[in-house]
């Protein structure tokens, strides 16, 4: 009886994904304890974030994918509307306009777009009766660029790039022609020197610093220099949990959020890093399998995009901390402190689970 109830309750939870997720979150809590200077308050707060996120995941996993398909358009439209609202009346914090203040609560519509964007594009391609034509891709491109432009203007370049990626994955998986892809890549490559020559000196300087932060060691480069020292000094086995000197002695900035991977790498070394990458790879692999097995155009495009966007987050964050990618504000999935990213991630994994577990019920076309 109990076991039956248990089974009903977890009927729509993918056990493999769930196991990997919980393990990653557990690792995250340990790293956070170390990175926050042994702050129980921080860890408790993150536990609450995880609790809320898992609840959201469970709810979403229990929603049928058709329902998700039907809310794709409203979600997208509301998202764009809120972004326009931000541009017009948003609150400015740290020089960027990202939040919309509703009196009771503040929301960041760009976060919502992370889910709404792939849903919208997947819906769009699922609705085409014919194989997608060039014009369809043009329309999809427009649907992608409007919110991305609004987010980039806030300015929140990191989120804008990641949402672009999530949309691009849908376009690619929907069958964007290889000719166009290669042609686009070549023409952008050819345009770059020209665009570079059009920029002002100070704009070039900003881009140079973005690409090579060590050029500005008093500003953006400080993070990168300290983070690479943390990683490098971790060696093969790491200095051990709670023993990272860089992390414990306040040399690392933003070490509970965007740069938490430096703490992890210093304390757990190369072995820890590889294990974390493997953990992420397992989550990605499972996501790809779910996408491959999905029964409808909508679900397969959505599952594919969600999985690869997750990969992009993880890769961009680790790449930025280890100094091979520019510093853009992207948290490390399931590890960085913060409620918003935790909820958004779990929501997207809830969608994956919903797609996987409602498969038999979906009337495949």
């Amino acid at each position, binding site marked *: 009886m109990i076991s039956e109830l248990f089974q009903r309750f977890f009927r729509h939870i993918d056990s493999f994904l769930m196991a990997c997720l919980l393990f990653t979150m557990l690792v995250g809590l340990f790293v956070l304890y170390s990175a926050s200077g042994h702050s129980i308050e921080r860890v408790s707060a993150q536990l609450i974030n995880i609790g809320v996120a898992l609840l959201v995941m469970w709810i979403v996993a229990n929603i049928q994918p058709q329902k998700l398909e039907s809310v794709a358009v409203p979600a997208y439209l509301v998202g764009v509307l809120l972004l326009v609202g931000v541009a017009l009346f948003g609150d400015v914090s740290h*020089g960027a306009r990202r939040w919309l203040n509703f009196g009771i609560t503040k929301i960041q519509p760009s976060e919502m777009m992370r889910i709404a964007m792939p849903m919208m594009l997947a819906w769009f391609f699922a609705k*085409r*009766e*014919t*194989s997608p*034509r*060039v014009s369809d891709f043009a329309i999809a491109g427009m649907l992608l660029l409007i919110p991305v432009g609004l987010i980039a203007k806030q300015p929140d370049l990191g989120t804008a790039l990641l949402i672009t990626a999530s949309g691009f*994955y849908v376009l*690619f*998986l929907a*069958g964007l022609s290889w000719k166009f892809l290669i042609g686009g890549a070549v023409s952008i490559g050819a345009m770059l020197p020209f665009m570079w020559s059009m920029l002002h000196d100070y704009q070039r300087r*900003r881009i140079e610093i973005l690409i090579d932060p060590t050029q*500005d*060691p*008093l*500003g953006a480069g*400080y993070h990168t*220099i*300290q983070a*690479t*020292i*943390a*990683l*490098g*000094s*971790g*060696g*093969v086995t790491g200095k051990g949990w709670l023993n990272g*000197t*860089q992390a414990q*002695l306040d*040399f690392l900035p933003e070490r509970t959020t965007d740069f938490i991977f430096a703490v992890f*790498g210093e304390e757990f*070394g*190369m072995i820890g*890093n*590889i294990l974390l*990458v493997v953990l*992420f*790879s397992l989550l*990605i*692999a499972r996501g*790809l399998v779910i*996408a*491959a097995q999905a029964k409808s*155009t909508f679900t*397969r*495009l959505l599952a*594919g995009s969600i999985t*690869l966007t997750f*990969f992009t987050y993880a*890769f961009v964050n*680790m*790449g930025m901390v*280890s*100094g*091979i990618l520019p510093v853009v504000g992207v948290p490390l999935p399931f590890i960085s402190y913060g409620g918003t990213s935790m909820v958004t991630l779990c929501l997207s994994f809830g969608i994956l689970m919903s797609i996987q577990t409602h498969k038999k019920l979906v009337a495949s*076309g």
Partner: protein
Amino acid sequence: MKSSRELKNYHNEKHNFKLRLAVLGFLVLIAFSVLAARFYFLQIKRYDYYQTLAENNRISIVPITPNRGLISDRNGIVLAHNFFVYTLEITPSKVDDLDATITEITKLVEVSPSDRKRFNKQMTESHDFESIALRTHLNEIEAARFAVNRYRFPGVELKSRLFRHYPFGKMGAHMVGYIARINDKDIKNLDEADLLSNYKGSDHIGKSGIEQSYETQLHGTTGFQQVEIDADGRAVRVLSSQAPTSGNNLILSVDSKLQEIAETAFGERRGALVAIKPSTGEVLAFVSMPTFDPNLFVDGIDYDNWNLLNNSLDKPLINRPLRGIYPPGSTFKPFSALAGLEAGLRHPPFSISDSGYFTLPNSSHRYRDWKPGGHGNVDIRRAITISCDTFFYGLAMELGITRLTDFVRHFGFGQKSGVDIAGEIPGLLPTPEWKMRRYKQPWYMGETVIAGIGQGYTLVTPMQLAQATAVLANKGVAMRPRVVSAITDAKTGAPHLTQAVLNEKIPLDEKNLDLVRLGMVDVTLPGGTAASVGANAGYSIAAKTGTAQVVGIKQNEKYNANAIDERHRDHALFIAYAPAEAPKIALAVIVENGGHGGSAAGPIARKVMDYYLLGKLPDLEPPVVGAKPSTSIVTNPNTSKPTISLPNAAIGATNPAINTPEDEHYD
């Protein structure tokens, strides 16, 4: 293949999807391999390197402050430079008992009460962990004495710092400006401009004058050293470094000798003088009197000095040329005259028979001339020469306020001149629309009448008045005034001349310009209102005198300069350019409460022109103080009397509530 027309082939689509998914999966593998390679590089290959850096207790990035650019005058005389001084600095967070420590220090190094006051003031303004100067400018002996005892004073450091110094002190202080410690507001501004990282290590920033408006040029680029520090915070080894780039040097168009002569000529009087080279817009002198010593601000001004400057009735801190607003009075008449001539009015042989007053049709109110009984027969040239009010009342009425203001606006009235010193205010050129917006009242004809002689709402800054004179001298070609004439690149040493900017070319009839010029030249000849200014000059001067009232005088009341407080006397104004035929200098002088323009402000202008044109140094005689007494009667026109309050109308502004025709006092 007509695939685009076909309905979806679900089998094909699924196959394609899986293929593409596999491609992306492969990319994921490649990306993670790159990451793993990077981990290998950082954590295995370069492990020793990073391990050493982390173990030896880490890295510190030390900014190296660039040398601030120098400011010199057109002849290379330095007006602002830097030098090293020893300072004794305390970091409050590192000191247990601050008072005891300071008492101990006092036994070694003299610390005056004003040093203490300044230190306390800065303590309240800064963070605990910032080091604050207790004493600056220690001499060698004091420095050595402290250095020997240094071990006794943890948290107290002897530093060698680059200080800004203004060798001429008070001279040109409003123009050169000063630098002072960076405060929270500066930090916010720098952060917004994305410049904060360039100010790591900088303590000072330009706060006023050229030091402020050319901050980005003067500051330079901060260098840095990436150093390894030991547990005590001492640098052990330099890992990498980048030298700072000094700020660029500025060369001003101002002649410091001319500036000195002008300031000396003012003596104890308050006021402003701006001299401009009409053909290029270069500012030759920029005087605001009284002035102050900018050196006081560099170390952080102490409380007593600040109070003294800030609370002085003379307002020495206010930049009068840019922020002092005054009614132009009769100095406005040449521009009214030109407006009339260009509109085709009042061309000779037109003349009026002045009986000493002007009346509007259907009104019995008399707008009186400054001269009871009038000037008799007056044409436009003579009207300028003798400053005939009646003539310009009629002209203004016939022109109408809109035609008048539309014309003179081209000369820069009512707008910022655009000079390269920050803080300029636009003055006021009234229009009926402005009055409706400001007071919700219609424009009265009487206000047009008095606007013709520079009375009423019109307000100018000395900079504006000088610029308008320069434009007139340059026959309508308006060059934007500028103080910095060249910027010397710190790296290459190559001077880049700043560009002369043409603001506007006003189309003017040469014949009209000649008429106005002749009228203005006659002003400085016998019979003119400033005959004494032109006496024995050796070159011809085109000029106009003016007087602006400070206190309103009721109808039928007598103005007696002797009887009223000095601060309530009229302001004296004077504009001129010379040589009149080929002008090399144009200027405007305002002497607050100076009385009559010709006698109070004119001689100052003459000294400046004598030096600039002839190289003649002024005689060493005490300046004439005050104005001559006068008994002229002034009346109040029958117009509405709104009061006006402009922002920053702190000084100079008369009470425009009383729109009174001017009263000129003669020798």
